[in-house]
């Protein structure tokens, strides 16, 4: 466990290198990590709807094919919506990149070990579902390469980013989902409804 990436700096690297990406976050720490990297109107933060980050990002990626779409979630949230990786593979939107920050634990509820600490390999799962470009990321170099791939929008990409059990202060974005929806759509030039 010595050299695992630190989640906040990993997310910061990702987002700094993908300034134009549309970002969907999974509830819990990934929502805080993305907000800590800097507020953008094109971030959509989930505070619930566990298992929904990837299918929500899929609908967004299909609607916005000219933009890179990034789902940033955790191992627990991804596990609850694991079947959505099959649905993503079936559609294969070239502009969608899924980043799972995998610390092997349910961080929001007391750090209970998750399945990824107990034998599940999420990159292998994603590959098995049919996402050919699936990888485990353990170094900053691999993280940087991942952002290059994501920016190209040349194929659905899945990355299981192994991160340590670092303690971070909570960085909480507003919990007003309606306001978040409106500001996100406004940033794309869309009306409220």
């Amino acid at each position, binding site marked *: 466990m010595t050299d695992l990436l630190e989640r906040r700096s990993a997310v910061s690297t990702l987002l700094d290198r993908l300034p134009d990406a549309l970002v969907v976050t999974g509830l819990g720490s990934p929502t805080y990590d993305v907000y800590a990297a800097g507020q953008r109107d094109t971030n959509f933060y989930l505070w619930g709807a566990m298992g929904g980050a990837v299918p929500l990002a899929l609908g967004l990626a299909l609607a916005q094919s000219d933009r890179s779409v990034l789902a940033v979630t955790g191992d627990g949230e991804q596990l609850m919506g694991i*079947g959505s990786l099959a649905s993503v593979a079936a559609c294969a939107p070239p502009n969608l990149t899924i980043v799972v920050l995998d610390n092997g634990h349910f961080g929001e509820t007391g750090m209970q070990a998750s399945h990824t600490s107990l034998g599940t390999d999420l990159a292998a799962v994603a590959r098995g579902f049919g996402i050919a470009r699936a990888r485990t990321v353990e170094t900053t170099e691999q993280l940087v390469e991942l952002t290059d791939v994501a920016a190209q929008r040349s194929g659905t990409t899945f990355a299981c980013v192994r991160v340590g059990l670092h303690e971070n202060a909570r960085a909480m974005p507003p919990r007003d989902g309606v306001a978040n929806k409106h500001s996100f759509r406004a940033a794309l030039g869309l009306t409220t409804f």
Partner: protein
Amino acid sequence: MSTAVAATTWQESVFRGLKKAGVRQVAYVPDAGHAHAIQQAKDDPEIRDVVLTTEEEGVALVCGAWLGGDRAVLLMQSSGVGNCVNMFSLLESCRFPFLTIVTMRGEYAEFNPWQGPMGRATQRALELMGVTVMRVEDPDEVEATISAAADSVFLAGERVAVLLGQKMIGRKKWEQD
């Protein structure tokens, strides 16, 4: 293939109503009653069809589509409504427009008792989670009802489920297996 299903008027009406409403993404867990609309969605170059492993994915997908400017619909059977319950909180938390077309089981000439519990709870489950229910029993009213629901959803930002009654759908006999 689509030839396994004889497209009756109400089945064609489902897709026609969605097409006229400008739907661009059709997400579904298959049901025989939706087979025609699913095939039409696949054949339409302007529409993306998205097959799901569970219906709750479709709730999130429809919201993501709306965030990105697409109108979307979730097609499912009544059993799928139960799979969606917590994901429905996304709709109210963010007041996303939401349209779903639900084929009913467990309510009329149902041969499978396993369809009963969720079929009987479908309408109340939707309403408990803040989704307005419109029921259709008359095949001549399918297109108009979907059109009315689509207006409420896409023009007024509402959350609406159109339930297609099992009496209208008919006894399950349209597929061998």
